[in-house]
Every structure is written in structure tokens, then in C-alpha cells.
């Protein structure tokens, strides 16, 4: 996308009027503009995601939810953000200052940079990486650091225990996510997210959630655990640990954690849509005249809705049950599925690129 725009824009009348040439500076400005074009809508989407999350729980529990600020309470998230912005950033006396302040920034930045490889249409990604899936896996495995560092730097028992739990949980569930990705990659024959979507062209019956239903189920549950969503929100289990690794954080530092968490949830929804639900494709090929971005958006909204519903009606797991599920159920199951799908594809000559 970047390269195409880079070559196309100087040939347009606006480009000629401005006298734009294909220089390094123009390339830089283009990339920054595209990054902003992704990040701004994303942050607004995050603000509304928080609002809809709260509205959905409220409906499940027969409450009204936020309904005061703005029409239908739509501006509630912005009011909350503004309030947090005006608050004082409290740094505990015993805290390791530099790491304490760096942790929320790392969480927030990592939640944003994964979006660089998400294709919003054919070839419409900021970076069309050949190893896009590995990039997402790598960035999500880095996400542990924001949490561990915040827990350790806070110099508080609750925060430390919460961060240890969270790190162990994320590392455990990454293993099964890795195997799930291998299953999908076997069918696609490429690590490029664009190719993954292109392989599912041709309507809803070609989407991977049908042949890969068990794999999708494992991925969905692992995604809940990876994003620390209920029923796996043990890191911040308020009943035991007050708020886990976030105990000592206030003001914008807390807001960054919060934004990062929701940006990660949206990212996981987008990854699910791309891997199993045909990314930017419409369910019926006849509807493909509607821009692909719209379909991806609808799919992300759907998965976010299911995430919110799960939070509303599933009780929290106990920690040892969580570990058992990750290591004793999902790991063997996903390992078996990799062997099964690989064997199946070899036996029936379905492997791509042959």
C-alpha cells in the first residue's frame, strides 16, 4: 500500500501542484500519514469499544449502563479519559521510577504496532510482511514485559503476584496459539496475512472456520486468555489481588494500560477475522462491491461483541484450573490437531503449492 501510494501520489494533480517528488522525505511523510490514519480511528474505536463493552454487560445484568454523558452516554469514555488526564500521576516511594513509568508505555505501544501488518483490503496493510503472522506472535509475546515490569517496579505484593500470574498465563497460552497458527499456515502455504485472506476467497463456505472449527475454538479461548479477559482475568482478580499489576497506577499511566488492553482485544478480533472468517471478503461474493474495510470492521465488531458477552456470563477460572486447561488440554489437543491436519492434507493431496 505504501509503495503504491508513494508512486501514485506525485502523478496526481495535487501531487504536481505541490511539486512532490519521490524523495526520502516524501516517503517518510507518507508513512507517518498512514500510521496516523490507522492509529486515530483505532483509538476512537477503542473508546467506543469500552463504551459498548459496558453497555453489553449492563444489558445482560438488566442495568442501563453509562447513559448520562452525551446522547445515550456515548461520550462516557471520553469523559473518563479526560478525568484520568487531569489526575495526578502518583509514583509510589519504593517504586523503581524509570521502569514504573516505562511499563504502561510499552504495553500501549505494543498494542498499537501489531496493527501495522493487519490487511484492511487486498494489499492494504502498512507493512505487507512476508512473516506477518510471526510478527503478530512476536509482538504479543513482548506484551508480557509491560505487565512484568509494572508488577516488579510497583514494589507491591499484590502487583507483583498479579504480574507473575499474568506472565505465566500469557506464556502458557502462546504455545497453543502457536500450534493453531501452524494448522492454518499448512493450509495457506504462506506466513503473509494477505495470502491467508486471499486463500479464503469465494464466499462463506470457503472460510477457514468450517474446516478448522476445532482449531478456531482453541484459538478463541486462547485469545481470551492472552488478552487477560474474563474468564481468565486472574492477573487483575479484584477479589484476591485488588487490581493485580495495575494497583499502584493512576492517571494517564493507568489509562495507557486500559487503552492497550482494549486495543489488544480489537487486534485479537481482527486476527480471528483474518485467519478464520475471510478477512475483508464478504460472505457472498456478490457483495464484494462494498469496500473490504467495511466487512473487516463488521467482523471485528462481531468478535468484540462475543468477547463482551463472555465477560458478562462466564464465571472466573481458578488459577490452577487455568494452567491445567492451557498445558494439559490445549497443548496436547492442538499438537494432535497439527499432526492430524498435516496428515490429512498429505493423504488427500491438499497441500498448497504442489
Amino acid at each position, binding site marked *: 500500500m505504501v509503495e503504491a501510494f508513494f508512486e501514485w501520489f506525485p502523478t496526481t494533480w495535487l501531487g504536481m501542484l505541490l511539486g512532490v517528488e519521490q524523495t526520502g522525505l516524501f516517503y517518510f511523510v507518507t508513512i507517518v500519514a498512514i500510521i496516523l490514519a490507522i492509529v486515530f480511528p483505532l483509538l476512537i474505536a477503542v473508546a467506543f469499544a469500552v463504551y459498548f463493552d459496558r453497555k453489553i454487560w449492563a444489558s445482560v445484568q438488566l442495568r442501563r449502563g453509562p447513559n448520562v454523558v452525551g446522547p445515550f452516554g456515548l461520550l462516557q469514555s471520553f469523559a473518563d479519559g479526560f478525568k484520568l488526564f487531569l489526575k495526578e500521576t502518583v509514583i509510589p516511594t519504593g517504586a*523503581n521510577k524509570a521502569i514504573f513509568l516505562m511499563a504502561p508505555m510499552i504495553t500501549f505501544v505494543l498494542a498499537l504496532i501489531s496493527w501495522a501488518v493487519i490487511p484492511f483490503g487486498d494489499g492494504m496493510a502498512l507493512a505487507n510482511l*512476508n512473516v506477518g503472522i510471526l510478527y503478530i506472535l512476536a509482538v504479543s*509475546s*513482548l506484551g508480557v*514485559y509491560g505487565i512484568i515490569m509494572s508488577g*516488579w517496579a510497583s514494589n507491591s505484593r499484590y502487583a507483583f503476584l498479579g504480574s507473575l500470574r499474568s*506472565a505465566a498465563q500469557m*506464556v502458557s497460552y502462546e504455545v497453543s496459539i502457536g500450534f493453531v497458527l501452524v494448522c492454518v499456515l499448512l493450509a495457506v502455504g504462506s*506466513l503473509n496475512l494477505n495470502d491467508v485472506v486471499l486463500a479464503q476467497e469465494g464466499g462463506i463456505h470457503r472460510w477457514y472456520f468450517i474446516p478448522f472449527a476445532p482449531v478456531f475454538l482453541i484459538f478463541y479461548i486462547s485469545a481470551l486468555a492472552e488478552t487477560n479477559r474474563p474468564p481468565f482475568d486472574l492477573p487483575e482478580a479484584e477479589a484476591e489481588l485488588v487490581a493485580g499489576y495495575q494497583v499502584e497506577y493512576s492517571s494517564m499511566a493507568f489509562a495507557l494500560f486500559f487503552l492497550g488492553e482494549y486495543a489488544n482485544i480489537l487486534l485479537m478480533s481482527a486476527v480471528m477475522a483474518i485467519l478464520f472468517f475471510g478477512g475483508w471478503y464478504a460472505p457472498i461474493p456478490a457483495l464484494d462491491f462494498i469496500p473490504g474495510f467495511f466487512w473487516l470492521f463488521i467482523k471485528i465488531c462481531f468478535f468484540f461483541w462475543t468477547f463482551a458477552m463472555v465477560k458478562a456470563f462466564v464465571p472466573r477460572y481458578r488459577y490452577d484450573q487455568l494452567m491445567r486447561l492451557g498445558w494439559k488440554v490445549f497443548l496436547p489437543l492442538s499438537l494432535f490437531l497439527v499432526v492430524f491436519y498435516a496428515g490429512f492434507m498429505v493423504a488427500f493431496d491438499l497441500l498448497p503449492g504442489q
Partner: protein
Amino acid sequence: MLSLSLTELAFYLFAFVTVAAGALVISAKNPVHSVLWLILAFFSSAGLFVLMGAEFLAMLLVIVYVGAVAVLFLFVVMMLDINFVELRQGFLQYLPIGALIGAILAIELVVLGSAWHFGPDVASNIAAQAPAATEVENTKALGQIIYTDYIFIFQTAGLILLVAMIGAIVLTHRTRPGVKRQNIAEQVARRPEDAFELVDVEVGKGVPMPTKKG
């Protein structure tokens, strides 16, 4: 005017960060800071891999070393209860022997470097490079080599790691008596009929002790 291309600039940035972070790993006083610097060093060397066109290796470096190995390092180091003052007390006492070992290593490096000879076919090997990264994907190229020519070595390496893992588990595992464990299958298989019974209570008699079932 010094003109650098973007790639060169990125190379010098990553290289400088790698070396600086490496130096800080050994000079940081707090072990947790050391591990964090180590992570930065890993991360920027992954950046160097990307610049060389080895994107697959770069991602693996981040996933395996930063995402898994360094997390375990950090876990262990955070749990350590170290008295930093005590740690630094013996520094002068150990300085001579430390300096001696360092000097020996440095001399060995120099000897090795001066006596280094390139093999006769190195030049032809370099000339016969793999096709450009745009033609064959990194991942595919690696797979074609690892799973054909070097399959036995690759599998043996995996087997050695597996044996090491099992060995570590066997050595550290101990069965403690009297630990209560959940049997999930048993719990799930339990039906209401097994768990409770309805008893008609006669007035003034009370309920007899229930007979224990399943």
C-alpha cells in the same frame, strides 16, 4: 556533508543500541535492569537480522529469546533476594584473578585471530549465494534446507532438547505425600443422583447419617 541512506542509519542505530545494551548488561548494578538491557540487546539484534533480509530469524529471535527465555530469566532474577551492598564487597579482593582471566582470554582471542585462515572454498561459497529475498521467501528457503539436507541433524538437535527437558523434570520432580488433587474427569462425571439423596424425615426422629456414595 555526511549522507546516510535510511538502511545505513537504521544499521548504525541498531548496532549501537546492541553494543551499548550489551555493555549495560554487565555494568548495571540491579540484576533486573541487567535482564531488561539484555532484552533490549536481543531486540535490536533482531532489527539487525531484518536489515540483512533474514526476517524469519529475526521473528524467531524475538519469539523464542525475548518472548520465552528472557521472561524466565526475569522471573528467576526478580525472585532473588540479593543484598546489593554485600554483593559488591568482595570486588577488590577478586579483582586480580578476574583481571588475570580476562587478560588470558584476550590473548587467546588475539592468537586465534592472527592464526585464522579462511577455507579454500569460502570465496566460491559466498559467490554462490541463495537467490534474492524477493524471489524465494526466507521461510521457504530455510525450510528447503533444514527439512531436506539437514533433516537428521535438525531432528537430533530437537531430540537432545527434549531429553534435556525430560531430564530436568525427572530430576526436580518429587512426589509429596498428602497432597490433595482434583480429579476433573471424576468431578465432571458426577451426577446429582450420586451427590445427594432425598430423605423423608419423621417428626421427632431426625435424619440418620447419610451413607457415603461415590
